Structures are given as C-alpha cells and as structure tokens.
C-alpha cells in the first residue's frame, strides 16, 4: 500500500511538472492573455484587432530585439483591460483571478475595505454582494479557509491558539460558529479523537 501511494504521488507530480515544463519560462502579459475567451464577445461587440493593438515602428535590428519591441508595442496596456473589466462606466464583466495577467502583487491592488482584520468583516459582502467577491476570487478561495483544515497553512489561528481557544469561545462563540459546528468541539473534548499532539 505504502509503495503504491508513493508511486502514485510521484506520478501525479511528474504529470504536472511535464505538463507545465513546456512553458516553464516567464510569460509576458501578452502571452498570458486569453484571446480565445475574448473572441466571442469582441466579435459580438464589433471590436477589431486595432481597437486594442497599435502598430509600432520596429527599430531593433536583431530578431530578438524586434520581437521584444513588437511584444511591447502590441501589448494593449492597462486602459484596454480596465475599459471592460474595471472602469465603472464601461465595465461589461468581471474577470476573476485574471488580474495576475498583469499585476504581480495582488496585495497591492486589494480593495480599500480589505484591511488587516478583513476576514472578520467579509461575511456581509459574501452574502449581499457575492459578485464583488467573484470579480477577483474563485470558489477555491472560500474553500481554502472555510473547508481545508491542515497544518500546511495557518489562515486563521496562530499555533498557541489551541492553549487558550476557550477564552475566545467564552467571549465570542458566534465567531467560532462562522466556520465550526459543535462537533468540532466535541470531537476533541470527548478525548477519543485526534492522535496528533
């Protein structure tokens, strides 16, 4: 059993490494852009290639230089993406998890409401205006905190929290209820579950 599991795990890793290696290089924003996804709507709205891209006189003499200049010249830049996905008056739709096509650090472009303790406040938006969440986040972003329980990531509580969690439970049990049901308490306090220290 043990060897089968290891073999299968290695196989999975190899599959994805092999699949990803084909493009295991830095991709420019232009390369990351999904033309296929936009083809239908751009055609529908009568946009032509030149509405987003402009011609540029290539000065580079080497092929590599010319390619780089061409890439820069063809890159439509911020105003084009934001015209359809951000700007209030012209926006036609969200583009979840696609901000990284151009933005390296999403933390830098987070909404102003997303302050340090935002996790405590986000439920109102999730309930009243879920589309504002899905403009940037996909469903796995919810599952990452609400469903996944492991020691790989600490998304909510610090490690020593186990020692004094009862203090917060006595203060704000509604806060615990946001993610846990009572079985989460009784599973441990019954003394028969959890082997890990």
């Amino acid at each position: 059993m043990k060897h089968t599991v290891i073999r299968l795990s290695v196989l999975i890793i190899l599959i994805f490494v092999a699949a990803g290696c084909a493009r295991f290089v830095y991709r420019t924003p232009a390369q990351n852009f999904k033309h296929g996804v936009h083809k239908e709507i751009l055609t529908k709205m009568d946009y032509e290639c030149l509405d987003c891209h402009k011609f540029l006189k290539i000065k580079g003499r080497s092929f590599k230089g010319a390619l780089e200049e061409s890439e820069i010249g063809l890159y439509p830049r911020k105003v084009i993406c934001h015209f359809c996905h951000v700007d209030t008056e012209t926006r036609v739709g969200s583009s979840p998890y696609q901000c990284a096509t151009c933005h390296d650090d999403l933390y830098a472009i987070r909404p102003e409401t997303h302050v340090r303790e935002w996790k405590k406040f986000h439920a109102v938006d999730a309930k009243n205006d879920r589309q504002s969440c899905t403009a940037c986040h996909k469903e796995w972003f919810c599952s990452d905190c609400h469903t996944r329980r492991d020691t790989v990531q600490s998304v909510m509580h610090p490690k020593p929290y186990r020692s004094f969690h009862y203090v917060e439970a006595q203060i704000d049990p509604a806060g615990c209820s946001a993610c846990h049901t009572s079985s989460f308490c009784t599973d441990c306090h019954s003394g028969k579950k959890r082997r890990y220290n």
Partner: protein
Amino acid sequence: MTSKLRYKALVLALLAMTSLPRPLHGAELDGKFTSLFESRQNRDGTREAVLDNYLRLDLDKLFVTPLSLHAYGKYGTELNNGPDSTDIYHLYAQYRTFQGETDLKLGRFPLESHRFLTLDGAYLTMRPEGRIGAAIYAGQPRYLEFYPEQIQNRFRDTGDYLAGGKLFLQGVEGARANVYYSREGKDGTVYREIVGAGGGKDFRFNLLSSEVKMSADGSLDYNTDQAAIDKLTARLFFAFDKKLRLLMQADRYDIRDDYPADRQLIISLLSTGREDRIFYTLTYDLSTNFSVYQGSVFTGLRMPDGVWQNGTIVRGGVTVNFIKPAGLDLDAGVYRFESFLAKASGVSATLKWRPLRLWTTQAGVEAVLYDAPFRSNKTAKTVSAEVGYSPVSRLKLAFFAEQSDNPEFKSDFRTGLRLDYNFGFATGSPGLSGPRKEVRQ
C-alpha cells in the same frame, strides 16, 4: 468508495485530461499542486511522518465556451503504515453564459446562504435584462468532521437537505440589495428556516479637502420556524484621505436552531444562542512603508441562567512594508482576551525577508500568557522559521521548522518540506494562453 480507489480514479482522470488534448481542444487549465511532507510528534510521544497532497483545478472552456469544471481535493497519508485520507472540498461542473446570464453549478460547491457550508447539489442563477436577478439552489449540506486520526478530516453524509433562493439587485453601481429564503432540515424536521433581506450603499464625498469613501451595509435574518430574529448585522466602512480606514460592525444573534446535537452551532452550545457584538478595526498609514492598526471586539452573552456575561478582545500592532526596496516585510502586534472566566495576553511577530530573487526567508514568534480557573498563569509559545527557494514565480520549495511549547499539550518540534506549484496551460491551441503567475491574495 475507499480512499485508494478514489485516489486511483483521480489519477486516471488527470491522466485523461493531460494526455488527451484533442477532445478538449481549446480548453484552458489552471491549477495548483501543493505537497507537504511533515514529521511531527503524537500525543503518546511517538513521531509520525505525513505526506499531504492538495490539488486544485479549474478547467475552462470545456468542449464549449460556457462549460467549465472545478475541483479541489486532498490526499494525505501517514507513511509509517498509517491511515490515508482522500477528500474532495469541491468538484462541480459550471455552465455560465456570457456575463452569467445563466449560471448553473452541479456537484459539490461552497455555498453562502444563511451561513457558509458545502453543498452537494445544484445552484442556478439567472441574470436577465433589467435590475432584478434570481437564484435557486437545493442539495445536501456536508459537515466536516474529525476522524480518529488527524489526517482524516472528512465530510460526513447526514442525509440533511438544504434548499433556498434569492432575488437580487443587479447593474446598479455602488448599491446592492437582496431578499432570500433558505430551509434546512431532515425528513419532517426543520432545523432552520430563514427569510432575510440585506443591502448596502457606497458614498463618496470631500471633507476638509480630502476624499472620503463610505459604505453602509446590513442584513436581517428572520427565523420563520421559531418566529424570531436570527441575526441582525450592520457594517460601516470609512476611509479618509486614503490613509485612515475604519471598519465597524454590530451584530445581534438570537439563534434558535433545532439541529441534532452533533451539528448544533457553537453559539448554541456555549450560550442560549443570544449574543450582542460590536467590533472594529482602525488602520492608519503613517507612510507608504509604515502602518499602525488597532481593533477591538466587545460582546455580551446571555447564559442559560439568564445572566449576561461580557467579553473583550483588544489587538494592536504595526506593519512595516519594505518589500520593494529591501524585500522586507514585518508584522508585529499584541493582543488581550478577557472573558468572564479567563484572560490571555499575547505578542506575535512575523518577519519575511527576500535577500535574493530566488530565496525567501521567514521567521515568526508568538507567546501567550493565559490565566484561567485551574490553569493559572501558564505560557504557550511557538517559534518558527522557513527558508524557501523559488526558481520561477510559479514554483516554490520550502523547508520549515517549528517548536511549540504548550502547557496543555506536549512540546512539539515539527519539521517539513513543502512544494507549491502553480500551473496553467491551454490543452488546445498553444501560444494563446500561458500559465498563471503565482500571486499573493
């Protein structure tokens, strides 16, 4: 289906998806694979070695543009002949036409209704022309439960049902509103039946020659089965001059659920279900690199004897961001919890430093002094360190070590290796799409 069989099925599905691009011509795959090897101590003093693998997949444009498949799951095993565990956090097919005019989800997916949960079922959203959209859903809720071994945290099938729907405002900039209904139960028993309404509005104006942004939001959940207000929420956001930001929220709970004991809500377990709560967070940017924050929670709980008990949580700290000039990021703070029975005071600090483009380092410390009946004046502390290597932005290998000393538990020295791999490619036409860069969310 056993864990082994489920794992084999998952591998076969992955093989099919990656080796048969023809039927998926034009489909685009994004995902993340995380693998963790960890050595840790058990309660009886023995050590165990655990391998946890997480896989997240988003397969868009599957056969036709609106169809997509989304999956997120885990396979974990204890390497010394221990148990293994497979779990699927979500796995659903989605048919979403342009702008979500018709949006259908089928399978297991996260759901925010009267509370957050995972649903096995269907969710249909319709956004026709006009200001009103509608959604309906139905299925079986899933409850996460610990099994005797730590690595087995699995969803449990209870046979419960959950159904509901909502009408919502659409296409109005800076305003949101909705009315909703949900009913949860089993056979003839209704655990919770909620009718609710919520909404909010954004405001923008100038004050003292500075820009002010405000938003006010609220919601009301009414339990028709119990004829009582289940939850009432009001939230205010205030931003002044792009430096000062205040988030403030007030909640009133009066939870009267009829859940069986094993899935009762914790608020019902530790009080009569009645809680009033006010909390806020205030952040001020001293400069582009320094910010200070302070937040508090004030609560009142009604206990079974009818007496109200108060509690307070106070936090404060500083964040230092020199990521661009020096690759340095520091978060340090203090906090104090005071319940009607116990107190806890703590300090925490996390320092991240990226000295070279390929390498990242991280160190953290957290210490808590707590005082409770029969547990007076005890200290718990954790010290951790991590070194990461990232040859490309999408791949990171990290080694970590952590020492935890908790008086209530055994001291624990934990070490491990973690691999994070973000991938993305088009299965059809090459060159039109590329992998997603790893991003910080």
